[in-house]
């Protein structure tokens, strides 16, 4: 995680104070672990678009296929949810 943090600091142009690093690392680790537990994005044969496979509990999963818009730009792929109806 330290490596990721240093790379992010370089990209974000922030001089890191060594004393702050453990507290920043702690948040990185906590958020990533929480996020990874959520579930996965799957290509399911019966669905046209990629589906969210949500881990609803330890044994069960639920698949959702929301109405999202995908668009490719020159150098990055973005998924734009429509915030408003």
């Amino acid at each position, binding site marked *: 995680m330290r490596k990721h943090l240093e790379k992010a600091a370089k990209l974000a142009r922030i*001089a890191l104070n060594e004393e702050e690093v453990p507290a920043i690392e*702690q948040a990185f680790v906590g958020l990533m672990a929480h*996020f990874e537990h*959520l579930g996965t994005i799957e290509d399911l044969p019966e669905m046209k678009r990629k589906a969210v496979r949500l881990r609803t509990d330890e044994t069960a999963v639920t698949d959702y296929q929301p109405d999202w818009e995908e668009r490719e730009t020159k150098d990055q792929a973005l998924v734009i949810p429509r*915030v*408003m109806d």
Partner: protein
Amino acid sequence: MTKKQIIEEIQSKDQTIGAFLSLDQDVREADPGQSAGRLADLAMAIKDNIAVKDHPLTCASKMLKDHRAGYDATVIERLRQAGAWFVGKTNMDEFAMGGSTENSAFQKTKNPKDLSCVPGGSSGGSAAAVAGGMVSASLGSDTGGSIRQPAAYCGIVGLKPTYGRVSRYGLVAFASSFDQIGPMTTTLEECESIFSVIAGEDQRDPTCMGKAYSVQTPLKDFSQLKVGFLSDLSGVAPDVAKAYQAFCQELSDAGAKLEEIEFVLPQEAVSVYYVLSSAEASSNLGRFDGIRYGMRGQGETVEAVMRDSRGRGFGLEVKRRVLFGTHVLSAGYQDQVYKKAQRYRAMLRAKMKDLFAIYDLLLMPTTPTPAFEFGAHNDDPMAMYLEDAFTVPASLTGIPAISIPYGKSQQGLPIGMQVMASHGKEETIFSVLKGLEEKFGVFGRRDSDV
């Protein structure tokens, strides 16, 4: 009382609370009794990330310590036209990042209901100014719960409007697809009155939906009202769960039909919110580099000046989020993390849409616990982030949500209840809550609240 006397009184009261970062010592407007309009002579406090011409605009950050706004935000223009005046700018978590106002670079704000506790955040100063009796209304901004959570902790009313219903022109951006300005007040009536002034179209904010608001009549007949409530209250403090059940019972007694809902992602939404809001923050705060905007650091090269400016100008929580946001947008992680989070947001919106096809309102506690003591989460940022579990679903989906004071904990701390409606349906929220006030008494002023 003249406006100068009002300011002096606030200054004296604020010595204990620390709600204000600056007070308008040079009041030039007419004294009370001389202005007209819907909000004539209403003294308001404004969060220090909203532009009020010639007033400081620091976002509680060293980065903008000496900055003054050169123009009025749209909401300020509208409030001025309605007769309100502005006593000063309130403390907040730096750049609105935090849930306790402990991340302000300048001072600590205490919760007027218990001085050993935080007022919540990020609009903690705005909430404390109202709860401490210094003003009866303030403006806050809500990105992941920053109006509703401090309103709940301080025992006042706080509304996060539908995304796009209130102009963001003049609000310093944190996460542009989430940020909304909203009122924080002692009563529901004042909250609605201020909302009716600030809502509506603004050509200067392209995301503004252009839907004005008219004050509603209280709902009389609750029999057609369908309300969804959470059955699973795991992780919620017993006092909060008890208040929640009492609130549900009150709606049922009024005649509404209540049904249990299974709501995916109350806690899981937290990390989705932090991925997306941090990504947007890393982009929005890129302009504060000491060259274009903000405190100028030192260095031999432009790159070194920027690194020093941002390294010293930003506090710990801002660095955490900017770095996390940069990480999730970096090559190799954009698909794995950022895009996945966007898909979860889309899924949550779809789920919410399904729920509002059945229900008029959804109820949740505003926070899992009442206000906590200073320093309680200093060593555990995740514990602080998880305090947002019930507020981030409305933020991710853009729906309106209000926090109203409802009862107290055994320690005497206020508890907040959150009422959510579908996009653009603030009318339903106010009509129903005003109907409940007619039947059972004004929120925040009942025997159980004082």
